């Protein structure tokens, strides 16, 4: 019973991590840019939820709890705008420079977001409301937390919609063509800047959604970005650079690892072992576990 509950928690955590990792890969695939501000985008999503809760609470009569799911469209919108800002300020002006330049500008953007949030909200942890209320439901003899189930359902809907777009639509093919040879994509009439902006908006909105999902149980502090980008990064490395499916698998593995180790030991140990595992994985497979760099597959 306990095992099943732990597994459900791990799947929920993995689903949230998967949103982060997938958002990261989206930007990566459409632009080849590595967005180091992505962790801060998750944090921004969490604080967007906190801020929206505060704003709605003023409109509603006191005592009415606001379900987090109501906040989702607002969080998606706000973080999509943040994504557009990252693209416009930290990527588009230097898109033709060596990739390291983009690493540095997005790190700079992350610093701005972290410290801006820190100044506005303070350094203390904040919590977002649960998606569909707290408590548990009995399901096939298993006691499941409502929040975990809601996280999984939300992530499945978002990821499913995205997978459909990328695999079945012209837009998805255009995304991938732009990643592989942007100049040639333009020379085929694909509007590269539009695709780039869209990728940053979508990718950052996915990170923002994850921020809302995570900020109930795990709270959110302005300085959480570095750890989150690392997990997204690790998921992408494990799953193969540029692979959405791989990123999802990678995110699940990380979540199971974390929940598993934390349940028998402590959270810092889980995190530390995760970083050791990354170094070991890279030692054995410099291209990731499933990765074949040539194959950019949705």
């Amino acid at each position, binding site marked *: 019973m306990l095992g099943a509950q732990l597994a459900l928690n791990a799947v929920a955590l993995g689903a949230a991590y998967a949103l982060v990792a997938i958002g990261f890969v989206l930007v990566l695939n459409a632009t080849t840019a590595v967005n180091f501000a992505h962790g801060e985008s998750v944090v921004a999503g969490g604080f967007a939820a906190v801020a929206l809760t505060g704003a709605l609470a003023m409109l509603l009569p006191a005592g009415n709890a606001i379900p987090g799911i109501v906040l989702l469209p607002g969080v998606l919108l706000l973080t999509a705008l943040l994504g557009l800002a990252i693209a416009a300020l930290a990527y588009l002006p230097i898109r033709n420079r060596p990739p390291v330049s983009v690493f540095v500008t997005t790190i700079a953007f992350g610093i701005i977001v972290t410290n801006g949030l820190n100044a506005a909200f303070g350094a203390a942890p904040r919590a977002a409301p649960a998606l569909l209320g707290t408590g548990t439901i009995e399901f096939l003899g298993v006691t499941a937390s409502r929040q975990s189930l809601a996280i999984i359902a939300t992530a499945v809907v978002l990821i499913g919609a995205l997978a459909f777009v990328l695999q079945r639509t012209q837009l998805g*093919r255009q995304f*991938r063509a732009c990643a592989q*040879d942007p100049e040639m994509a*333009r*020379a085929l009439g694909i509007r590269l800047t539009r695709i780039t902006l869209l990728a940053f908006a979508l990718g950052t909105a996915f990170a923002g959604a994850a921020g809302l999902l995570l900020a109930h149980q795990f709270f959110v502090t302005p300085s959480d970005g570095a750890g989150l980008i690392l997990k997204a990064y690790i998921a992408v490395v494990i799953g193969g650079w540029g692979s959405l499916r791989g990123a999802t698998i990678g995110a699940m593995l990380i979540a199971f690892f974390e929940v598993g180790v934390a349940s028998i030991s402590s959270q810092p140990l889980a995190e530390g072992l995760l970083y050791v595992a990354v170094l070991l994985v890279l030692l054995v497979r410099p291209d990731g576990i499933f990765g074949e760099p*040539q194959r950019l597959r949705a």
Partner: protein
Amino acid sequence: MSPSQHINALQIEGLTVRHGGVVAVADAALRAAPGAITCLVGMNGAGKSSLLRAIVGLAASEGDISLGTRNLSRLPIEARIHAGIAYVPEGRRVFPGLTVGENLLVAGPSGARLRRQRLDRALDLFPQLRPRIQDRAWQLSGGQQQMLAIGRALMAEPDVYLLDEPTLGLAPQIIDDVAGSLRQLAEEGAAILVAEQNAGFAERVADEIVTIQTGRIMPDRPGRIDT
């Protein structure tokens, strides 16, 4: 598509391209007529690639570029493509990680049905690609990649095809196939402009040959050039 009047000619007037301080193309004038293959021949560095890139908008230029009655010179790349120009660059530049089918579809118009029809047409012209439609483009040989690159251009059903050195690095047998497909596209009414330094190939396929030397288009020498 039948050879028809609605296909436009490409007309270039007073086109100058500069790379840094160096003039790559100087005051060039050129016309590529519908239904014909026009070959732009010249040595390496004569300015052929620069001229084609300027027409697509990949290189900045001064002067007039028009398609039919429409002036393209102020338009960004994407708009020129949508106006009816297709570009097959030197070195093929297919999307290596996309499948052969995706490489074709991505260049197609909006409308899934129309895209499928065009895909079929491209595969009819290059039947060698049909069995490999699920393969990734990087798995193709150089010759097959060249066919894919031409097929990809065809997906937009452009008025004008610009091909930069389509025979470079290809074995003689494959060059014949490329020549055949270009001839067929011309017969369907498109205007085709090929930059080529393989004079033998130019002589074989061209309806008209234009010579370019150190960035300047040479005065008309109708008929054949010396090889």
